[in-house]
């Protein structure tokens, strides 16, 4: 049962039927899926959602597929955590984390968008899927394509982190490393998409793919008890996630699942690749492309496809944007791990440190509710913390050697259980 009307150009508003296209023929603007909100308002209630399995698909009616999802049925509904330790460290009252570092199956939020993209690709009849990626998308497409019986081609910058390369090859994907930046990989993929007629999840299937990110926002609202936080901080690469989290909140408001949305959405980038933040700070509308130089490789997109819309989301919501240095990124990763036991990848370090910066600057008041988006797992970017987390202490198997480094202490008072007589 489809709740979609069709595709519409975000710029000139021309309408198109549902098909694997992503660019307006008339003005070259990006296409977006349009829904029948009045119909969805009647069909999708809190009760109905709460009765469904705990996955991103509980919000089915707001996702662009016609039939039941075929790929990624178990994706999403990741933990939303009240972060008491981190809140204390940052000097704020109410702090939450939405933890996609443990998303199923490939430990990043990309599983959401890929699940939608591949389910839709199957509906269109594609048998081969592909993507251009900075890493997390590669893992996700490879895994979900294999699980769904599709062949996959994955294009990455050749110098990507080992963890992400191995984490793609294991699923049997065809992995092609390009001697160039992500932006060049993406451009090449446009040409291949045109030539080979494959379903490129972030190119010709992009309008459907992008919708999956809304579920990150839907889950936040549901898990907070059908309300939204006052501040949400989101990392920005291509700029799609931040716009869709906002769209997700606004859709829930439109169909009456939550009351008025007053959330301020803040964007986070690395100083070594901050085209969107720079445009925000300079009061510009258009994005100046950059050549990325940062350890946050998953955010290293110098020419973000949704940069303009990300800027608009930040401004429309009254939020702000900041960037942090590579060393601040590492500190952010360590802070999160040490206060909350969550090991996030470099993008997560960016978001935590930008949050700290915005709080210290006063852009985020200490008494308001704050949510940090954790989008990927640290095991994928271990190289980044090489030599930054200390070393193990090595000793011989002798008690005396241990006592040399940790002198004897008074025994702790623990409860002694008396053995039953």
């Amino acid at each position, binding site marked *: 049962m489809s709740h979609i009307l069709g595709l519409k150009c975000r*710029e*000139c508003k021309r309408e198109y039927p549902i098909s694997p296209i992503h*660019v*307006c*023929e*008339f*003005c*070259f*603007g*990006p296409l977006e899926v349009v829904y029948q909100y009045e119909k969805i308002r009647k069909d999708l209630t809190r009760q109905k959602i709460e009765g469904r399995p705990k996955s991103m698909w509980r919000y089915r009616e707001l996702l662009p597929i016609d039939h039941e999802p075929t790929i990624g049925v178990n994706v999403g509904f990741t933990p939303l955590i009240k972060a008491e330790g981190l809140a204390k460290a940052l000097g704020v009252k109410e702090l939450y984390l939405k933890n996609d570092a443990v998303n199923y199956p490939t430990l990043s939020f990309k599983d959401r968008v890929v699940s939608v993209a591949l389910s839709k690709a199957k509906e269109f009849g594609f048998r081969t899927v592909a993507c251009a990626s900075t890493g997390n998308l590669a893992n996700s497409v490879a895994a979900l394509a294999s699980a769904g019986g599709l062949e996959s081609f994955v294009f990455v910058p050749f110098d990507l982190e080992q963890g992400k390369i191995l984490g793609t090859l294991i699923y049997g994907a065809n992995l092609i490393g390009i*001697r*160039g*930046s992500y*932006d*060049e990989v*993406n*451009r090449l*993929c*446009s040409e291949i998409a045109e030539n080979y007629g494959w379903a490129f999840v972030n*190119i010709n299937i992009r309008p459907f793919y992008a919708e999956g990110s809304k579920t990150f926002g839907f889950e936040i609202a549901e898990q907070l008890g059908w309300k939204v936080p006052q501040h949400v901080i989101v990392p920005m690469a291509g700029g799609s996630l931040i716009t869709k989290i906002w769209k997700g909140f606004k859709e829930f408001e439109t169909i009456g699942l939550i009351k008025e949305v007053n959330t301020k959405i803040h964007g986070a980038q690395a100083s070594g690749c901050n085209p969107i933040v720079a445009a925000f700070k300079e009061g510009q509308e*258009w994005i*100046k*492309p*950059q*050549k990325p130089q940062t350890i946050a490789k998953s955010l290293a997109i*110098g*020419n973000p*496809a949704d940069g*303009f819309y990300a800027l608009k989301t930040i401004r429309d919501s009254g939020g702000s944007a900041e960037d942090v240095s590579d060393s601040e990124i590492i500190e952010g990763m360590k802070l999160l791990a040490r206060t909350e036991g969550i090991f996030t990848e470099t993008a997560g370090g960016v978001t935590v440190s930008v949050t700290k910066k915005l709080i210290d600057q006063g852009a985020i008041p200490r008494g308001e509710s704050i949510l940090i988006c954790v989008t990927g797992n640290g095991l994928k970017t271990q190289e980044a913390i090489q030599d930054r987390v200390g070393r193990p202490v090595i000793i011989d198997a002798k008690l005396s050697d241990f006592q040399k480094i940790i002198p004897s202490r008074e025994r702790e008072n623990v409860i002694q259980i008396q053995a039953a007589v």
Partner: protein
Amino acid sequence: MEVRVRIPTPLKKLAGEQDIVQAKGKTVGEVLQWLTETYPGLQERLRDERGEVRRFINIYVNDEDIRFIQNLETPLKEGDQISIIPAIAGGAFSKRRVTLTFPPNLIKEPVIYNIGHRFKVVTNIRGANVSENMGWVTLEIDGEEEEYSKALSYLKEIGVKVEPVERNVIE
């Protein structure tokens, strides 16, 4: 100023089926004005209702995005090339660049003139070092895929070494 305007494939039919149009203007704005007056079908494709150049159309003067120069006020020199490029997948495009190394017997031959003459390609020299008995030239070659391939085959046939040049999208 006499300048060349490169028309993107999807808009060719609105510019009299031309890839490249000879135009006149002192600034980018003047050339665009002339272009849309001469080919009225291009007006609504290039500009929105407010008359602004559409957000997802990028305009370059000799490879530089006009937004980094002076936008529509960007001044032009004789022989400049303006490129109109739809901003799909990031926005920049790659021109075809090759480095040609000439064997001694071809140093004195007008090879580059010849390929522009025999095939429908436009060449632009980006760098060169030519002496009495050795020479290399880095050339930008513009034109339809088929003509470009024919030009390269011809060069290889006559003994010129042809190597593609790696190029960053953002320089």
